[in-house]
């Protein structure tokens, strides 16, 4: 008779101590944190000016752009998609921002206009990827091109200066809390905490993980996979907009070449932070550590008076090493 006799033999659960160690090691934040401390320790010894409050605050300020946009990119990655359009988006949103501020002298309207553009771009990316099913790498490469071309077309390849000269706008990118911590760092940190909370403690965040981890299971659990992914692209668009606003404030204008290659920097940090390209794995804190490692590294190498190009070389090497280590770990454990 057609009788299948499969059954599993009982496997004892791993001992609690071993399981905990395994879980600890599996969390990519721990090795990342150690790496960050090693980087900081190394440069503190190598340079006297590295470990000063001022310098640390500066690095945090510099990392704010990648951190802010990185939150969105990481969320898209976790949902199992890719977003590389952020490099052009940070430049594109500066245009409505500056143009509307110049016309209305209102920071509020300027920011609203910028966010509107970010929302539209996120929605277009999300619609094409999630609803039409076009590979999101292709979609966002496409919008990367289109937005950059659009910026060149609109600006005629020059910068549009900020003529409203609002003090509040200047403060966004250049002000410091208590004269020390740059506002961008503060903004990025608040956003990081907020979205980390969402990803961990709101049903939406868990849906993002589920959709990226196993879309079929997520669908069976009653989630709308498309809607969740769509929302992730919108979040990414809006966060890249915030990064773009901070950048425009720092530059004091809408610069057509702003953010060239920024998408690669962000993707590198996100991947370094242990967020998997295949979806469902990774955390925003890991991403933040990835950004910080790269920022401190770049700052430290600069202090050692090494050519800035070394930073690119070292960063590239570190990314390969980190991802290779991650892969190795996954196969071993």
């Amino acid at each position, binding site marked *: 008779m057609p*009788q299948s006799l499969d*059954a599993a033999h009982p496997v004892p659960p791993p001992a609690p101590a071993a399981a905990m160690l395994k879980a600890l090691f599996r969390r990519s934040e721990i090795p990342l944190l150690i790496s960050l401390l090693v980087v900081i320790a190394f440069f503190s010894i190598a340079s006297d000016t590295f470990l000063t409050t001022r310098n640390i605050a500066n690095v945090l300020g510099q990392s704010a752009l990648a951190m802010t946009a990185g939150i969105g990119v990481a969320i898209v990655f976790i949902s199992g998609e890719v977003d590389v359009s952020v490099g052009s988006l940070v430049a594109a949103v500066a245009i409505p921002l500056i143009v509307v501020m110049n016309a209305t002298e209102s920071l509020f309207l300027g920011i609203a206009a910028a966010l509107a553009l970010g929302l539209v771009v996120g929605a277009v990316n999300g619609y094409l990827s999630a609803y039409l099913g076009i590979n999101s790498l292709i979609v966002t490469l496409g919008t990367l091109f289109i937005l950059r071309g659009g910026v060149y077309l609109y600006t005629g390849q020059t910068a549009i200066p900020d003529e409203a000269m609002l003090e509040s706008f200047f403060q966004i990118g250049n002000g410091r809390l208590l004269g020390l911590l740059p506002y961008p760092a503060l903004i990025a940190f608040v956003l990081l905490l907020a979205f980390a909370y969402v990803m961990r403690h709101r*049903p939406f965040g868990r849906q993002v993980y589920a959709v990226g981890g196993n879309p079929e299971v997520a669908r*069976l*659990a009653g989630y709308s996979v498309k809607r969740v992914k769509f929302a992730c692209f919108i979040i990414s668009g809006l966060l890249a907009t915030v990064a773009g606003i901070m950048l425009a404030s720092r530059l004091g204008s809408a610069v057509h070449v702003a953010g060239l290659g920024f998408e690669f920097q962000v993707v590198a940090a996100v991947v370094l932070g242990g967020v998997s390209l295949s979806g469902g*794995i990774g955390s925003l804190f890991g991403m933040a550590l990835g950004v910080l490692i790269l920022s401190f590294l770049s700052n430290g190498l600069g202090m050692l008076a090494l050519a800035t190009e070394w930073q690119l070389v070292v960063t590239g090497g570190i990314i390969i090493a980190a991802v290779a280590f991650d892969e190795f770990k996954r196969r071993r454990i």
Partner: protein
Amino acid sequence: MHAELVQERGGAHTGAAIEMHGIGKRFPGVIALEEVDLVLARGKVHALMGENGAGKSTLIKIMAGVYGRDAGSINIGGREVALRNPREALAEGIKVVFQEIALISEFTVAENIFLERHPVGRAGSIDWKKIRAESAALFERIGFDVDPAARTGDLPVSQQQMVEIARALAHEARIVVMDEPTSSLTPNEVALLFKVIRRLTDLGIAVLYVTHKLDEVFEIADTVTVLRDGRHISTRPIGEHTHDTLIQDMIGRRIDNLFPRSRGHAKGDIALSVKGVSTDAKLDDVSFEVRAGEVLGFFGLMGAGRTELAKAIVGFDPIRAGTIEVAGRPLKPHDTRTGAGLGIGLLTEDRKGEGLMLELSVQQNMSLAALGAFSRAGFVDETREKAAVQGFVDRFRVRTPSLNQLIKNLSGGNQQKVLLARWLMRGLKVIVVDEPTRGIDVGAKSEIFALLDRLANEGLAVVMMTSEMPELLGLSDRIAVMAEGRITAVFDRDAATQENILNAAIA
């Protein structure tokens, strides 16, 4: 909460939880279901039986909202429902426990229990305390011993299956569908499962129990519906059935004709010799020999290590210790190229993942391993290739409109024939077949079976991994039984019985 649900719907007519009538579903080139009726009574266990390809999974996928139906009506509580997607099915109280694990492996067990709706507290934050406490209480209630805080992917498959089943209890389900729930469970867990099912029926929930295991049906079911080739064959109370009548309904003919016991094969020289093979993952000191023309059947429960053994001896997976020799020549481990060169190949159990190149044609799929033989100085002689492929298509009676047809459009049985031909075209001394008839309809099953029998008669050494008893007993000259990565017993064909094989498998 379930008790209230039951009372609330108490007035509905006939006590039917769901009524499905005239359900039809077609896929490109295949009619999967035609005019199927199924009515589930509240508080009863209804078994759904049928061979592979009978339409069981299509029917439950329609209930789960995974597939839309092409014809027929579904009524729940006297109301016609659409069930356009899984969300609508869940909202109607239909909870399906699929055979494939439908859990997020990165999540904790507790979170997976509440995957469909995370309970939220004040301000919309997820109430993790409640999730942990309620799943712990749930497990306690049904006597299921697993840590709710464990990462789901770390659990063995059988426990993951139990988590899925327990999940059905955590929701306000009116209808619970279980698709082959025992396929990876231990006897203890099966007992636990039946306890869970009785608890469900006590709450007035209708259970649809999909299986092809007869013993379970007689133990748990109140009513049995049998499907065959997408059609409704019979629905009867279990009391009206015997083993024989059920089998007759399922197969439509006697089982003996399906897997005829072969006459036994003439043995030649030693074709494959495996000595002391161990792997990091599973295998522990496995040794055996197979002679040309011999069929060595491997039996074991799920997780016994059959597939791992198959992959190790053809050179696909690395091994930690041991030697493998094909016709007296050593095989370099973890290198399929030398394996294929020596004449050993694997017909995988995972056709989609490891066998087929779905987007390529029948011809490209079939000639892959033998392409070197059709080429000169690296150039493929397509005329010879095509002739060889056509030859095998005719000989194996592969039903395909043309050699350029994409392989994904063929039925499972025809795909399997193409994969078998891939190896035979190359010329093998040893073929390792892993669950050769999995996911194949009844007719093609016996064709594959006859093909393997013929190949052995022609002098090929066959190593067959299977969990199908009739297949094992019908074809093997010797039977090796595995448990936990080791060979626990080897029987000659005349000494092998279901009982002693099973005893060795559980040891």
